[in-house]
């Protein structure tokens, strides 16, 4: 059998990978990178319009994306085993940071989410937990056989609950729920018993009631407003009504780039950050929304493919969780802006203006690429 026969027998993807040997050697997944660049490029175009044609904003965001890509490349160089080894110690450190935030953190808008580090500026420890929680849960399962036993289930539940409660205490309910859900996704992928899932679903009603009792007034207000936006036309309800108007008035093909009236006349709040999808929907219409979802879906499928290709449990779980968490952000953001979920302050992945989210997400894609490019071809 000569060399070309061998090549012919490989699936087409593998063939592409062989051709991209340069990207292969620097551990970058070319296909994923291309889709991410398309997404970010489109995002910048929307951002330019949503920020009222502010080229400064676009440049700032592009720089953050560049930084994010750098972080992604670095993250891709580190073998997946290293992530598993370091995730639990880093997780412990992250929990300490969360506790420090509750004690020393700085207040902004009634919550204590930021930690000032002298000389380094301020950051939100809850952001890094978005990565560390799924990594840690995956690390727990990686060394044990699946489906998980009670002991590992209890341990991972603890790993999820500690940061969730600490972040809920800040209070930042949105992030807390997102982190809890990412941990839960890992458990689900690991093969959490269906019976437990059914029990959990059954007990969610009393749990919901308990949670309601624990909520801060403003959080309850948000949920009530979500259920009935007309009840608070001066505050949060106004935002939702405006974003629905922006989306709805976009119609099938939109008002055209730079022609959105709602976002440009500042009716739309947070038009370049959390609510940017409304600006997109207004200017590019239903077609634009479909295109965006299509790009997201392709990225998700690539992520799922990487997860399936992974050689061991730990890698599979990490890749699967990161991919599905990415979707959770997409769903929560679009759901909240279009009025089917309460407003929880989640940016639209890779599109919303803001640095932390872009960098963390690209870091998680770096880990995905590392999993894909470091695997042994035979196992």
């Amino acid at each position, binding site marked *: 059998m000569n060399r070309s026969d061998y090549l012919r027998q490989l699936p087409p993807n593998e063939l592409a990978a062989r051709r991209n040997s340069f990207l292969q050697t620097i551990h970058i997944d070319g296909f994923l990178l291309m889709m991410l660049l398309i997404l970010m490029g489109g995002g910048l175009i929307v951002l330019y319009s949503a920020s009222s044609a502010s080229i400064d904003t676009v440049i700032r965001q592009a720089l953050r994306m560049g930084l994010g890509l750098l972080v992604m490349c670095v993250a891709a160089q580190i073998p997946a085993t290293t992530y598993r080894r370091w995730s639990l110690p880093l997780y412990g450190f992250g929990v300490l940071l969360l506790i420090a935030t509750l004690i020393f953190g700085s207040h902004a808008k009634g919550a204590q989410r930021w930690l000032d580090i002298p000389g380094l500026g301020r950051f939100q420890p809850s952001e890094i937990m978005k990565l560390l929680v799924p990594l840690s849960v995956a690390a727990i399962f990686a060394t044990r*056989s*699946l*489906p998980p036993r009670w002991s590992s289930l209890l341990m991972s539940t603890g790993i999820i609950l500690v940061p969730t409660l600490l972040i809920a205490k800040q209070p930042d309910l949105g992030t807390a729920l997102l982190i809890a859900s990412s941990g839960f*996704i890992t458990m*689900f*992928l*690991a*093969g959490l018993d269906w019976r437990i899932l059914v029990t959990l679903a059954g007990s969610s009603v009393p749990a919901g009631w308990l949670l309601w009792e624990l909520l801060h007034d403003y959080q309850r207000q948000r949920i009530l407003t979500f259920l009935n936006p007309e009840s608070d*036309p*001066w*505050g949060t309800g*106004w935002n939702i009504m405006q974003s*629905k*108007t*922006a*989306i*709805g*008035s*976009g*119609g*099938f093909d939109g008002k055209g780039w730079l022609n959105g*009236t*709602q976002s440009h*006349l*500042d*009716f739309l709040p947070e038009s370049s950050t959390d609510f940017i999808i409304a600006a997109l*929907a207004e200017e590019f*219409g*239903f077609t634009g*929304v*479909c295109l965006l*979802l299509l790009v997201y*879906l392709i990225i*998700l*499928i690539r992520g*799922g493919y990487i*997860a*399936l290709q992974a050689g061991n*449990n730990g890698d*599979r*779980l990490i890749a*699967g969780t990161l991919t*599905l968490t990415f*979707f959770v952000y997409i*769903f929560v953001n*679009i*759901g909240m802006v*279009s*009025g*089917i979920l309460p407003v929880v302050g989640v940016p639209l992945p890779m599109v919303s203006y803001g640095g932390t989210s872009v960098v963390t997400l690209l870091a998680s894609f770096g880990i995905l690429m590392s999993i894909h490019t470091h695997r042994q071809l035979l196992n």
Partner: protein
Amino acid sequence: MARNVTFHDKLREQGIFKHRLVVAFLGVLALVGVLLLRMYHLQIVQYSTYETISDRNRIQIEPIAPTRGLILDRNGTILADNNPTFSVSIIKELVPNLSQTIADIRELIPLNDNDVQRFEKRLQQRRRPLTPIALRLNLTEEEIAILSVRAYDLPGVIIEANLVRHYPQPELLSHTIGYVGRINEAELKQVDANNYGATEYIGKTGIEKFYEDRLHGTVGFQKVETDARGRTTRVLEKIDPTGGENLHLFLDLPTQQAALKAMNGRRGAVVAIEPDTGGVLAFLSTPGFNSNLFVTGIDHKSYNDLQNDRWRPLFNRALQGQYPPGSTVKPMVGLAGLDGGFIDWNYSIWDPGWYKINGDGRFFRDWKKWGHGFVTLDTAIVQSCDTYFYELAHRMGVDRLHDFLSPFGFGHRTGIDMAGEVSGVLPSTEWKRRTRKERWYPGESLNFGIGQGYMLSTPLQLAVATAIIANHGTIIEPRMVEKISTKDTGIRPLEHAPLQHIKLRDPEQWRRMIASMRNVVMTKKGTAYGAVGRRLTEYDMAGKTGTAQVVNIKQGETYQASKLKEWHRDHAWFMGFAPTDHPRIAVAVLVENGGHGGTDAGPVAKQVIDAWFESDARSRSVTPEEQDASPATEALSTSQRMHTPPTGTEVAIH
């Protein structure tokens, strides 16, 4: 065998994962479907509804600024009110070419670079859509007319009527009332941004800042329908703003004016307090400045001129000036000695003109070079003998003095209801260890005993201490605001903290010390007799003079040689109260570089006290019926009238 099991497990595990991932992706697809359905519903099914809302009728929520509360003196004279002024404003969204429009306006009316800069800065800040932003304020009637005529080719340019803070007595009350100014980003973060949605001004200093919450009021809202050009077509809903509360001060304007007149252009401070209530009757720091300049935004040149003025008109001497209190502390040091049993009224010392600590070579000199001879406490107060207090302070030590003087208000904030108060310094061994990392030297106690050295007091603190002596030890918290009122609730008094007392072992000592302080003013040997007591006919006064040495010039400041002398001259202090048996006013006066307390500061106190007695008698002679028609009620009706015009009334032109 074992190897086989692992292999089997691996396959099984991969199977589980594959299965779960497929389930998850089905979930993802379902949820994407939900999003698509939702978007389809909004964008296709309900398109025409939202299209209508978006294009033809834009429903907006506009905040309406509340009217700021007035500030009135005790007789109801308005000290801070709101004047309607006209400004030309721009709605950015409706202007086709902003720079061209500004250029056009500049051709019509005078417009300086400051106006434009301020406008552009405001443009950068977060705001509601279609909010007019003021370009130039205080339009004259002629300017309004010119702009109205050209209105047809200036779309998006409107003339607005706004209420702007106005101080009828700006120089007199600049340090008392403080001023409001345009709210900035940092301040917006401190307040409830919703409540300040339409507010342009916020209290920056003084009473305006301290009572910001009460003065501001609650924002109102109106839900309006606007057409595509941003014109209001219909008001759908309206919640009226609630105006701020009016503040009724203890301050007596005639007394305040008398204080300014008595200072006669010199630098310094006057604080007069009603001992019964702690109400501040006069509060003056000279030189003052025109606080109206700050309201709409002072231009750079005027501000720099004020900032660089060598006499520092922006500095609130009464509240923030810290000076050695000098001999004015002697009555309190004397009381400390009496109460601690170190001296009695018969105790006397020989004053050769100096005092010397054993083993220390240093001479502590009396102001009188050849000494006062035999001195008792009474003589020591009346003639302000330093040696007596050197000896007493030496024996008592710093910490006893500190503990006794502290309740008089020194070394900590008095708690007056004004923003920016400083605490002064009341030294102790602990204080010195903490701040200077050094032990206390006995010689320093001697300086402390005559109010020099480390001790620093603000004029306000000294006025409070004077009132406490006049009260025989009842501690007062100085208050600017006596009552508050609103349109709905009428006038009601402000709650005050309960009063406390300085208890002496023998309360009789208060009376005897006051008698000595009376001798300072009313007897021929007293340091304040020639300039004050000799001229008193209708009442008697107790007091104490003081001179604060200006030890050194501040580092980094250079002065012309001719001026150097003046800056070296001592600060003159006077504290006093009258009448001595039932005091109705306690005053502290500081004249910077004034020279001598008795001759330079004393007459100021006398004129202030005269003015208060006269003004008080006048307002007492007014019958209650007449009082009803007094300016207080008039001012209230003014404020009610002020509630009615909504801000942003569009006078012209689209």
